């Protein structure tokens, strides 16, 4: 038994050394980190890019928007991703591009009779001024407001478009699009908001001021709840890194982004 443990140790150590020795040479590496909302799309783009550029290895990490900015500044990642409506001052030193746009859908449980809200109603519901579905034409039941966490790009964009509301103190907080969707899908009285690419048949998007959250209405400027997705890199980024950023803005990549559910940058 001891020998087994010893052997495992030795094997582990040896393996570690071999792995360590094997690193550092070979393909050119680019690391992306940040916004978890954009992470899946970045992975997809990286996969596509690498099929045509076998000499480059792109690694995609999550971590959140601020992590993206921080690790880009510190050099831990060459490209930072952020879904903030406006980049913070510390990102000024970085070169940034808008890679895509994302609509924010207001969603309800499919069992809810309400299917249209005005911008004012949305604002009052999330601020806690309207607390019963009856007021907006639904059943007589209290509203469960579900929001993203403070600092979330989606939330700050959402609040900014609504004119800087203060979120109701009773709101439940979830920290990802996926859980907002699950929570709304599970609770017949819930209302939440999320990236419009992630709307599925378990939840029901509502129209706001009569416009639905579709690419057409967003591009036309009639659906107002939209936020940009930024990619950042240092001014002296490597050629491979620059080339990849150029690729993301290419029509081919933008088409891919569009197909996956985001809205083209321009």
């Amino acid at each position, binding site marked *: 038994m001891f020998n087994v443990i010893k052997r495992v140790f030795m094997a582990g150590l040896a393996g570690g050394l071999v792995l360590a020795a094997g690193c550092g040479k070979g393909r050119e590496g680019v690391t992306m980190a940040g916004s*978890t909302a954009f992470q899946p799309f970045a992975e997809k783009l990286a996969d596509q890019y690498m099929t045509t550029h076998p000499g480059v290895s792109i690694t995609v990490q999550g971590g959140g928007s601020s992590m993206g900015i921080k690790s880009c500044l510190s050099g831990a990642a060459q490209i930072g991703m952020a879904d903030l409506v406006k980049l913070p001052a510390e990102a000024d030193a970085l070169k940034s591009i808008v890679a895509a746009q994302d609509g924010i859908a207001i969603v309800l449980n499919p069992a809810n009779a309400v299917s249209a809200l005005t911008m004012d109603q949305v604002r009052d519901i999330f601020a806690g001024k309207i607390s019963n579905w009856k007021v907006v034409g639904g059943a007589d039941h209290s509203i469960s407001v579900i929001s993203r966490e403070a600092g979330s790009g989606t939330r700050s964009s959402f609040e900014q478009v609504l004119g800087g509301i203060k979120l109701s103190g009773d709101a439940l*907080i979830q920290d990802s699009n996926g859980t907002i969707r699950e929570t709304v899908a599970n609770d017949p009285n819930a209302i939440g908001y999320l990236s419009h690419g992630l709307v599925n048949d378990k939840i029901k998007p509502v129209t706001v001021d009569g416009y639905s959250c579709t690419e057409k209405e967003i591009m036309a400027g009639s659906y107002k709840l939209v936020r940009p997705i930024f990619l950042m890199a240092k001014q002296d980024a490597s050629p491979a890194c620059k080339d990849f950023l150029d690729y993301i803005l290419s029509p081919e990549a933008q088409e891919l982004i569009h197909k996956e559910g985001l809205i083209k940058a321009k």
Partner: protein
Amino acid sequence: MKLNGEKIAKYALMTVAFSALASLLLIAVFIFKEGLPFMLKVGVKDFLLASDWDPQAGKYGIYPMIIASLYVTFGAMLIGAPLGVAGAIFLNEFVPKQVMRVVKPTIELLAGIPSVVFGFLGVMVLAPFIRTHMGGPGLSVLAAAVILGIMVLPTVISISSDAIGAVPNSYREGALALGATRWQSVYMVTIKAARSGIIASIILAMGRALGETMAVIMVAGNTVKIPHSVTDPVRTLTANIALEMANATGMAREALFATGIVLFVVIMILNGIALSVIKTKVRKK
């Protein structure tokens, strides 16, 4: 030459023994470095005792989260500790060895299920149940306590049961020979002899409950408010850090590290209490 080797072994082990303490200090230094200046800037009292948390508006009060963390942790222990210790006793004392050999590994297996899976089960099964039968949004103190209570079971059971298993058989036989029933021998002899192991298991479990993050975020609702009933949603200290860290910048980020300091200190205090409990009990014996 041999004694030299012995000396090397001793000093090597002593160095190794510092690893835990050194890691702790390193972690403490990094967290305090990031959070302490903020805490002093805002004022320790305002930070700890104000109930308003809105980093965007410059309001940093974490009192409701301290309360929430305590409620959820104690709730979890209320569920996990009795169940776990009872299970450990039952499996060791009242069940054939073969059954124990199947059940204990099954329970330990649970320690390997990611907290996220527990959280998902909480969202899918437990929260709707609470919502329909007890009211409220379902995501609540109760849901968090139950999920955490279940999550700590493997820790409590496996360590307690190692401690109970290590009690020499002669102790039990001694009690039985004096005419005690099996339960009396367990109650009067085994539990006393295994006490330090049982308490250790509970302390470890408490640490895990207090520190659990992912599962709590998913089932507690994360509303910053002091709960008035077990069906109210709450946000714990850990949830606060994990929820907002990814996107926090500047002051808001420092506030989260300051939350980390509070968590750190609460754990120190809890440990201090637990340790002194053990010590006084040992002394009384």
